[in-house]
């Protein structure tokens, strides 16, 4: 995929940058402004998650196609401590770091596809996609 956008996440300004880039990409893909906002909010949550738990990592944004459906894919990668209890981390309202616990489960609610891979001690990869409704 040639047109992917790799954004390093190492400070809180990067979170703002990532969600703004995500919104711009969603606009290019033809998402409504309401959906652009939803995508930006989801990116904000997972980018902050990287900062809070792994200190640094990367967000990769790209346009994806599935048949006649177009979508925005967001991948968040970090080499942080990983998540030992994924089930618990995906529980709404659960947080280990004074958050409101909306981070990962919140992002999952906002997106259509959501996948979380994590190995304790090696890092975490979140892959999520929002699809535009085809007519």
């Amino acid at each position, binding site marked *: 995929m040639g047109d992917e956008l790799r954004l390093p996440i190492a400070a*809180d*300004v990067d*979170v*703002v940058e990532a*969600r*703004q880039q995500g*919104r711009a990409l969603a606009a290019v893909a033809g998402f409504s*402004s*309401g959906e*652009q*906002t*939803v995508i*930006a*909010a989801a990116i*904000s*949550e997972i980018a*902050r998650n990287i900062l809070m738990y792994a200190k640094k990592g990367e967000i990769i944004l790209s346009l994806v196609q599935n048949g006649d459906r177009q979508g925005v894919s967001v991948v968040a990668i970090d080499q942080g401590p990983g998540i030992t209890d994924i089930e618990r981390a995906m529980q*709404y309202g659960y947080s280990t770091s004074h*958050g*409101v616990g*909306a*981070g990962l489960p*919140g992002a999952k*609610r*906002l997106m259509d596809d959501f996948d979380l891979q994590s190995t304790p001690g090696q890092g975490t990869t979140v892959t999520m996609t929002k699809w535009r409704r085809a007519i």
Partner: protein
Amino acid sequence: MEVPILRQGQYLIASIQSALTDADLSHLREALIAQVGRSRCRGVIVDVTALDVMDSFAVRTLRDIAHMARLRGAETVIVGIQPDVAFAMVQLGLTLKGVATVLDLEEGLAFLNRRTEERTFETKPKKPSGRG
């Protein structure tokens, strides 16, 4: 990005001008709470019209501002949440329960006037020389 805080009568008005980082938000919270105490104001308005996204950190900060201000004697009202932002917030499960929210600055001022009025009526008979 510093958020300007204006004083209007007995209210403080913080109008956010552009996207904020987490540090900016925390700074806004601290600045507002410090000023509420110093100026003994009765109300706080946070204008978020310029925000095109509100995630869990922003919502938590706004909620904290409202709770802390209340402990220091001031009512808080959040004004200007955009329709798209509101919809994304509730989908995220962020409903700002217990925090007053109104359409815009004008409504915010009206809301605080009503609130302080009600409180004045409540306290008048007991404390005729109350702080006004």
